[in-house]
């Protein structure tokens, strides 16, 4: 009996350690001490800060807004973690924040938050929400007037990566390593193929999907297979499984374009094979939306796409980029970027394409 109790205690301790490790811990209030009457936002992260990408970008955007607002804006960050055990807390957490009633707006993002958000919108019709990086289906949820949906034109930045990869390729064949075939990944993919074709009409594009966002070893096997088949530069859009493409590129002396964070800066050992990275500027988009909301002009009940013109996406263009990419290619890429901003080039998007159209596009550049 005593032993059984001890074993239960130890198992509980293990579990507790796990949860702490997942970063499912409590709130991390930022700053605090807001003056009365300030506009207050709550940022609920379906992950943790320190990812050097998505969540950090959101937090930096709000921090910058707070610094420049001179006390008129304040916010609180809640790091909910991204583990399977953390996801059960998403809905209670967002409902708690709604019930508090002290936040002018609750900001959250990514597809894992969608169900919790829908539930919160129904129960708190007077609470305002900003939801980013996943389509919120207004029609299917009764056209709520308290949600503003921020989406990113990943296809635009992916177009530039495709064009650049094709121009830098010696063999005329490039590749794409995706996580799972879904809306966002396909948006990256169609932009990538279009950009590559525009830069080099006879280009071939090999496409592989890992099937998840974690199996980096499989990502490496897939990338090696694509490189062996003739591709010599590739784009990884597969979460941490994308590391497989970067390693395969280093081992075989090929090129790998980064995504979500400046991977050349993040991985100095691999920087020589990473010309640049495609970024989503979550922070900039949130800043624009919040400024509008503080003026009372944010159009709730609608969704907006943030692309190059809005500063929502960008390509890393630092000294490392200038060193790795020849000037004429850089100029050509800048020219394409201007054409996208001005609307002269309209980039394909998976949200307006049928599966058959995407398949036809893939087939038009297939290796075999």
């Amino acid at each position, binding site marked *: 009996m005593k032993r059984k109790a001890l074993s239960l205690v130890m*198992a509980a301790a293990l579990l507790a350690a796990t949860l*702490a490790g997942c970063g499912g811990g409590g709130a991390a209030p930022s700053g605090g001490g807001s003056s009365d009457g300030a506009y207050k936002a709550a940022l609920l992260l379906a992950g943790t800060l320190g990812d050097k990408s998505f969540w950090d970008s959101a937090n930096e955007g709000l921090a910058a807004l707070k610094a420049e607002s001179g006390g008129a804006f304040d916010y609180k960050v809640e790091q909910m973690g991204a583990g399977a055990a953390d996801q059960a807390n998403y809905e209670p957490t967002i409902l708690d924040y709604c019930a508090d009633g002290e936040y002018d707006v609750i900001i959250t993002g990514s597809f894992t938050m969608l169900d919790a958000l829908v539930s919160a919108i129904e129960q708190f019709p007077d609470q305002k929400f900003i939801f980013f990086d996943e389509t919120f289906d207004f029609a299917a949820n009764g056209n709520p007037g308290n949600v503003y949906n921020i989406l990113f034109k990943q296809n635009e930045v992916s177009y530039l990566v495709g064009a650049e990869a094709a121009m830098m390729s010696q063999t005329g064949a490039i590749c794409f390593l995706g996580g799972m075939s879904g809306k966002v990944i396909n948006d990256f993919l169609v932009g990538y193929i279009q950009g590559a074709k525009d830069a080099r009409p006879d280009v071939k594009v090999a496409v*592989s999907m890992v099937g998840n966002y974690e199996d980096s070893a*499989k990502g490496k*096997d897939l990338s090696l*297979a694509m490189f062996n088949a003739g591709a010599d530069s590739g784009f990884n859009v597969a979460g*941490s499984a994308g*590391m497989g493409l970067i390693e395969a590129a280093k081992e075989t002396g090929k090129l790998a374009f980064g995504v979500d964070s400046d991977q050349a800066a993040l991985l*100095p050992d691999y920087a020589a094979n990473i010309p640049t990275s495609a970024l989503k500027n979550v922070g900039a988009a949130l800043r624009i939306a919040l400024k509008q909301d503080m003026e009372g002009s944010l159009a709730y009940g609608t969704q907006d796409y943030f692309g190059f013109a809005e500063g929502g996406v960008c390509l890393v263009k630092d000294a490392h980029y200038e060193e790795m990419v020849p000037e004429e290619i850089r100029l050509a890429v800048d020219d394409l970027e201007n054409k996208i901003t001005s609307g002269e080039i309209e980039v394909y998007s998976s949200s307006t394409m049928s599966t058959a159209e995407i398949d036809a596009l893939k087939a038009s550049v297939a290796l075999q």
Partner: protein
Amino acid sequence: MLRLFLSPDFLIAILRSTTPILFATLAAGVAAKAGICNMALEGIMLFSALFGVIFSNLTGSWLAALLLTCVCGGIIGLVLAFFVLNLKTDEILAAIAINLTATGGTVLLLLAFSGDRGSSTFPTVSAPAFGGVNIMTVLSLIMVAVMHLFLYKTPLGLQIRSVGENKNAAESVGIKSIRIQYIALILSGVLCACGGYFLSGGYMNSFTKNMQSGRGFIALAASEMGANTPVGGFLVAMLFGVAQAVGNQLQLTSIPVELIQMIPYATTLIGLAVFSYIVRKRKEKLANG
């Protein structure tokens, strides 16, 4: 296409994807022979993948890193044994606790060592490869023979099998069953650690979070299909490796990716069905004969 399947690169790819599963299959086998289902393979593999890069960074030697990782794998096996054998925790629950601890714990340790939550950003020394074949792959093949000899030709192997077959009968002839099961689980941890080490120190040359990606569970199934024998487990692990490598090559064709991604699992499922059919037939034959 055919040219790709006949290339040496393809054969190397098969061996590469088989190696981690094979180590874990042997690990599952030795635990199962002692009567314990080691579900913690997934967690041990993940911990070992991280320990491998940390130790190789600290020592600068792949061999030292491998040995230290094996020690850690053995310790996790020991912890599991302590829970299951001394504290009488349910073996599945104890394993789940270890797996969950690995998911969060590796990210915590990774953050402490590299300042990043996604992947190890520091340089590592990986196990050497000869002509594309990693030394860990060779070791995994050698371990199949070693484990076979150990289980079937040594007194300790016989004791492990008898404890697994019937604990009470083994104890009645003076075998200390708990000691034997401790040894089996520690050995299981060490073997699994080799597989985890290879994931980040040969297959990849860095650690990324959750990089074991279900290989521990696949190994459990592979071992079971191979009747928990080293040679049987090897054949099934190899089958899975071939399916995986074929799938990777097929992604270059226009076959829908959703179909291709089913191949390794469909192969396993069909294999399992064939296996249980053969076992049933054999049992029927015994019953009738």
